């Protein structure tokens, strides 16, 4: 066997062992990103606690994931604090310590349902609650458990339609969405940066991924980036957001 093949084989074993038996909560499980990551992590024998908003529920894929490993599926009402705490506590009481939290959102729905010319205040209220408020509530339920365990990794998603911060994230914003999406996505950048500053010293890493207009064309890039943030290789990239144009 050639040396490079041996290396590849070893590396595959290391990667597979790395994830085995870890526990992960995925919020927004029925989004394209949620499904992609669920499948990837299930194949790596990660126990999955999947959470969806009741407006996006679809448990069809859960059975497929169960053939790989343990999966719990919870439906919550948007903006309902008690509902989200119950869902997280249910997953925690079954799996134990939560190692990873993935905060995803139903970007496709936003792009499909909110037209770029929409300037209504009501649309803002809907997206603000569905995206920003729910991210906050899920984090508020999960992060104390990670702090208690002195370990955890949070990966969140927003889009290149909004501001993604300084450093690598600095770059042009894309116009592939509405003004509401842009403001929401930009707000998430600030919210997560502040949260990162507060919780990284307590052992919980926080990094993000900004989805570009064509993110569905190459899901492998999403997996590559999730791998980077979950593996610990990005441990010193505190609060950074990689832009997947």
């Amino acid at each position, binding site marked *: 066997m050639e040396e490079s093949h041996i290396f590849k084989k070893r590396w595959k074993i290391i990667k597979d062992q790395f994830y085995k038996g870890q526990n992960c909560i995925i919020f927004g499980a029925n989004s394209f990103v949620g499904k992609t990551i669920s499948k990837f992590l299930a194949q790596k024998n990660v126990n999955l606690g999947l959470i969806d908003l009741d407006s996006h529920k679809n448990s069809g894929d859960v059975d497929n994931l169960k053939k790989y490993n343990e999966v719990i599926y919870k439906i919550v009402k948007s903006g309902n*604090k008690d509902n989200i705490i119950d869902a997280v506590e249910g997953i925690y009481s079954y799996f134990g310590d939560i190692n990873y939290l993935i905060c995803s959102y139903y970007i496709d729905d936003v792009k499909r349902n909110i037209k770029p010319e929409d300037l209504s205040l009501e649309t803002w209220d809907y997206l603000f609650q569905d995206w920003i408020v729910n991210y906050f509530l899920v984090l508020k339920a999960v992060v104390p458990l990670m702090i208690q365990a002195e370990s955890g990794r949070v990966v969140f998603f927003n889009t290149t339609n909004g501001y993604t911060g*300084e450093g690598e994230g600095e770059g042009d914003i894309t116009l592939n969405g509405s003004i509401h999406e842009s403001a929401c996505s*930009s707000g*998430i950048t600030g*919210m*997560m940066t*502040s949260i990162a500053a507060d919780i990284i010293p307590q052992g919980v890493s926080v990094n993000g991924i900004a989805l570009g207009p064509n993110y569905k064309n190459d899901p492998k890039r999403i997996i590559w980036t999730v791998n980077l943030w979950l593996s610990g290789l990005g441990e010193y990239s505190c609060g950074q957001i990689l832009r997947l144009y």
Partner: protein
Amino acid sequence: MKKKNVSYEEKESLKGKVTLVTGATGGIGSAICKRFAELGSFVYICDIKSTVELANYINEQYEEPRSMSVPCDISSKVKVKDMYQKISKEKEGVDILINNAAVHGKGDFPEISYDEFLKTIKIDLSGAMYCTLMAIPYMKKNRWGRILFTGAPLSSSGIPCPYLAGKSGFIGLAKYISKKYKEYDIRTFTLVLRHCDTPMIRRVMKARGVDVEKGIEELNKKSRTGKMITPKEVAEIYVYFSLAKSPKINGLTLLSDGGITYL
């Protein structure tokens, strides 16, 4: 009635423009209102607190009224809609919107309560979104508009998450609008501040039992320029942007932190 002494070049340079300033009774907001009125703009003074005193003060300086008090809780979309209805009856619409209102919020994550989070972010982000969304249709119709934001750097440490969500939201919002509506000559600008020598900063120090003069001296020392930016200087930057002729002056984010972030 007194007449304000302004230089020939700048006199009336904003005449005919209607400006709406949120968070108008604070140190920065009131300086902006006074300066824009001085340059001939009609200024709607918006704050959750009463703004009558400031409006009266401004109007006393000139022969004709140059300001109007529009107290409003911008976290309520109904109240923002009412405020714009009043403005559109009197002046058709807003030419220059200055999104300056913000509350700081209290608490690190994850200790910060849900109620505190919601209360803060609804003013800091939703309030600015409401005002901006209501301003754009008239600006589009009029094919002219300026939307300005008072931001904060992401690198600011110890800032509660809902506050930074609002400030970061401003930067993205400004960049998006600058691209999306450039054909309507709607331009945006974000001034990113770290510390500003406002009465509020002195009040906060006093409330925390800090010697105010020493505290101010320390903040001034932190800055590479040896002093914090003042509200009057902030107002000048906003005027400078509002009067910029080049269409390329659009979507800019100006970091005015005295070099604290990068130097």
